[in-house]
């Protein structure tokens, strides 16, 4: 019996081979959005890979965390490269998750039967933001330390469960070494486990249903997944890798100053750019909105927005598809404008 037949007997890999042979990707206007998911996946893989490498030297204690990151940047050969790639890829990944989401949204790829693909994608967006929030603290530098104080303090404003949530996240009343331990555990164990599960489901559903085809006039053309799309996607991945390497080499991620719990907060504390729009919104809210404190009202609004994002596919039902689609598009554009506008506003004001 040949090796191929032996393996086929046990793995049934020919089914996968047949599947890939028949898989196609639609060729449409704005077809580039079909590459966004792949790019996000690529960046996620880079994060897993470089994250594992950083674990070889990183030490998650208040005394040693900052020094170990400095050690990685200064003493370990190519340590600066691995850490800078991890930081840059994290930022690019958040960017691409958003791009992928808006792409899928405007192509209305969430329509039946792909509702759960959208839901799992929205969950992956939240997980990505949680990765960013927890990872930011790990170098234990001043900016991250105060950003974490502010960020967790905001979560403490969530109605009803705010205070217990804050204590749970911080591992106590304040941001201390206990917080660092928790964030480390969340960042390197809990989130990767959850992300792997949800990502597995997401990718499985994408294979199960195939690529969504937008409703548009004209003949339906398609590109075979193998080799046409795979080769094109590989080129995009290579390009992303090149951009990533260039960013990491030309603009190595700074380590900053070591966090000092007794030092006053420096001016201009801002969260990571992808949280700036929320931060800025909370900042400009009046002290009281209706019967709630301004911050609380803002947080409730953002939680509702997150919920709406999660259930987007189920909001668009009924007969009037064209009208629903128009409304969805307008809301999507408004959301994108709001996020972009508030981000810019946040960076223009002190």
């Amino acid at each position, binding site marked *: 019996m040949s090796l191929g037949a032996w393996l086929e007997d046990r793995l049934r890999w020919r089914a996968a081979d047949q599947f890939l042979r028949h898989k196609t990707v639609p060729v449409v206007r704005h077809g580039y959005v079909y590459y966004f998911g792949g790019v996000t996946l690529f960046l996620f893989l880079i994060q897993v890979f470089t994250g594992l*490498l950083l674990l*070889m030297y990183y030490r998650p204690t208040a005394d040693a965390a900052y020094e170990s990151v400095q050690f990685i940047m200064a*003493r*370990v050969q190519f340590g600066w490269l*691995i850490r800078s790639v991890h930081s840059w890829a994290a930022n690019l990944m958040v960017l691409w998750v958003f791009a992928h989401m808006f792409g899928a949204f405007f192509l209305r790829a969430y329509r039946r039967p792909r509702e759960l693909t959208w839901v799992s994608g929205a969950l992956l967006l939240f997980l990505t933001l949680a990765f960013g929030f927890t990872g930011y603290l790990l170098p234990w530098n001043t900016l991250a330390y105060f950003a974490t104080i502010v960020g967790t303090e905001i979560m403490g404003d969530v109605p009803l469960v705010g205070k217990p949530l804050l204590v749970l996240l911080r591992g106590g009343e304040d941001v201390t070494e206990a917080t660092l331990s928790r964030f480390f555990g969340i960042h390197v164990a809990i989130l990767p486990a959850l992300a792997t599960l949800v990502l597995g489901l997401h990718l499985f559903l994408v294979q199960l249903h195939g690529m969504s085809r937008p409703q548009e006039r004209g003949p339906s053309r398609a590109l075979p997944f193998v080799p046409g799309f795979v080769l094109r996607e590989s080129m995009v991945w*290579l390009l992303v890798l090149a951009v990533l390497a260039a960013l990491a080499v030309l603009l190595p991620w700074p380590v900053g100053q070591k966090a000092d719990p007794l030092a006053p907060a420096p001016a201009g504390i801002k969260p990571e750019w992808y949280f700036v729009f929320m931060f800025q919104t909370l900042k400009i809210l009046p002290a009281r909105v209706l019967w709630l404190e301004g911050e609380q009202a803002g947080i409730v609004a953002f939680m509702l927005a997150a919920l709406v994002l999660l259930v987007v596919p189920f909001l668009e039902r009924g007969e009037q598809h064209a009208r629903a689609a128009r409304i969805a598009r307008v809301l999507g554009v408004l959301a994108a404008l709001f996020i972009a506008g508030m981000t810019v506003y946040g960076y223009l004001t002190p």
Partner: protein
Amino acid sequence: MAPKTRRRHASFLGVLGMARLQFRVTRRSLADYLLGAGLAALAGTVLYPLVRYLIPPEVKEVAAGSIVAAKVGELKPNSAKIFLLGGKPAILIHTPQGTYKAFSAVCTHLACIVQYRPDLGHIWSACHDGHFDLNGQVLSGPPPRPLPQYSVTVKAGDIVVTRPA
């Protein structure tokens, strides 16, 4: 007529013509070659920093070969103390006879840290029952070599242990 001319032409070119025949490059093979070379270069540029990264940077050993291991009077006779000398554990023994002796505390068998047994009056490694006398020589057990001995001097109340260079 034409084939004959061509053959003669080929013979004029001689070795060069043969070479051209053997290394005929098609568009496809060139593309394959370039792709393969590109992928190999990519693998190299990814793997080289990776391997270098995984090799731990050398941690500088403490240059000083001597250290104040204890104060006079700190250790009673027939007792000992483990301390660090150049980043490695060492043992200072106050012998029952009242002299000071110092050795590397790393067992020569499988690098367990040894201890002084007041009941036996000599050095013992708990891991595999290795026994050393107060000159560091192996008395019994699996250790293959004696413990390296360090020199001890007493200066103004300090017991200084020095590792020979």
